[in-house]
């Protein structure tokens, strides 16, 4: 299983029936592919859709039914559409149970930086700041390192997305939580040792005795 599949599959286990879930672009989008059998959630697209379904077959898309990237999607039976004020009311107002987002950096307290690299990449924050600030639970899906350099740092060097810490970081190596505001190693991926995770992480990780293998 490649890194992205490990991350997406592990996060899919966090989904429970009835949840309202917003998936970001990139690895987060893949989570929908690994939804456990019998689990039915509502996926939200922040451009104004609850009940987002799979990508339509070639030629079956419609120009007015799109995801947050502007690409064609389908709507499942029971779907609803609404304007952007309602969409962000859902996000900020505590109605969104879970968001899964990509990350550039996460720090030892769980602060996320994922929206810009000054001087290099200034795409705008889009909905990321509202999602991290407002969702009941925030999970970050990201590779553990970028070009060999740790992405889980003592302190983020890039501009933060929100003052609100994330709840969980899932990488291809580990699952990290932030109980008591401190980065804590919860699970290691199959075949990955605690020492390997520590070596690939800059932030000091609390390592309880009961670090378990990531269920996939």
């Amino acid at each position: 299983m490649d890194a992205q599949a490990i991350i997406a599959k592990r996060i899919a286990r966090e989904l429970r029936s009835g949840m309202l879930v917003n998936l970001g672009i990139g690895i987060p989008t893949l989570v929908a592919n690994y939804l456990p059998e019998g689990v039915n959630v509502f996926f939200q697209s922040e451009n104004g859709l609850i009940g987002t379904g799979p990508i339509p077959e070639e030629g079956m898309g419609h120009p007015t039914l799109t995801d947050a990237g502007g690409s064609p999607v389908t709507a499942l039976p029971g779907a609803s559409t609404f304007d952007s004020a309602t969409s962000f009311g859902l996000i900020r107002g505590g109605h969104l149970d879970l968001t899964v987002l990509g990350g550039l950096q996460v720090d030892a307290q769980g602060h996320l930086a994922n929206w810009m690299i000054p001087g290099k990449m200034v795409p705008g924050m889009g909905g990321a700041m509202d999602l991290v600030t407002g969702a009941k639970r925030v999970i970050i899906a990201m590779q553990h390192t970028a070009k060999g350099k740790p992405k889980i740092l003592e302190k983020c060097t890039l501009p933060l997305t929100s003052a609100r810490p994330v709840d969980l970081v899932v990488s291809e190596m580990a699952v990290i939580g932030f109980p008591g505001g401190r980065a804590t190693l919860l699970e290691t991926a199959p075949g990955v040792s605690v020492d390997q995770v520590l070596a690939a992480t800059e932030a000091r990780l609390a390592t309880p005795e009961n670090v378990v293998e990531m269920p996939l």
Partner: protein
Amino acid sequence: MKTISVQEAASMIPDGASLMVGGFMGVGTPHRLIDELVRQGKRDLIVIANDNAKPGVGIGKLVDAGRVARTIASHIGLNPETQRQMISGQMAVDLVPQGTLIERIRAGGYGLGGILTPTGVGTVVEEGKRKIEIEGKAYLIETALRADFALVHAFLADYTGNLSYALTARNFNPVIAMAADTVIATADNIVPVGLIAPDHVVTPAAIVDYLVANR
């Protein structure tokens, strides 16, 4: 409400005007109006919208032609031309969190001076803004936004200007329709009065100033 041609509609918009434009990555954008603004050579425009779409699409066409002096948007990541013009200083870009942008527009249309939001607290977004605490939680004061014109795209319009929208092409449209001095609408279909049931009217005709006739 008056029905006019797309040429007449664009000719009402002067150089330097502020425009709120509906659409999300070009979906729900009044494309014919944008094309006509480009054709008529309108310039120095201030464009308030969710995004700048991408080169060759919707608002991206105004950017390609160098007609946008300033944009207020939440995301320009899929338009490298906007980013190029921003870095070269040709275009000013104000980036606003999406939920804050739509609420600032809503406030502008609903007679409010602004809104209080937790989004952006503790980030670069709070720079230069007032922060207040209510019941122990910090909020930013984000001021209302209005524009000279709202360029709206609907799925259905009736002859009086009632509008309803299709699926994800709704997005910013009904909100910007409340927040501009002059509202100009295009629609995929213009239908007789009564075909849009009152319950299904999203933007009431009373706030639509001009409806662009279909060819």
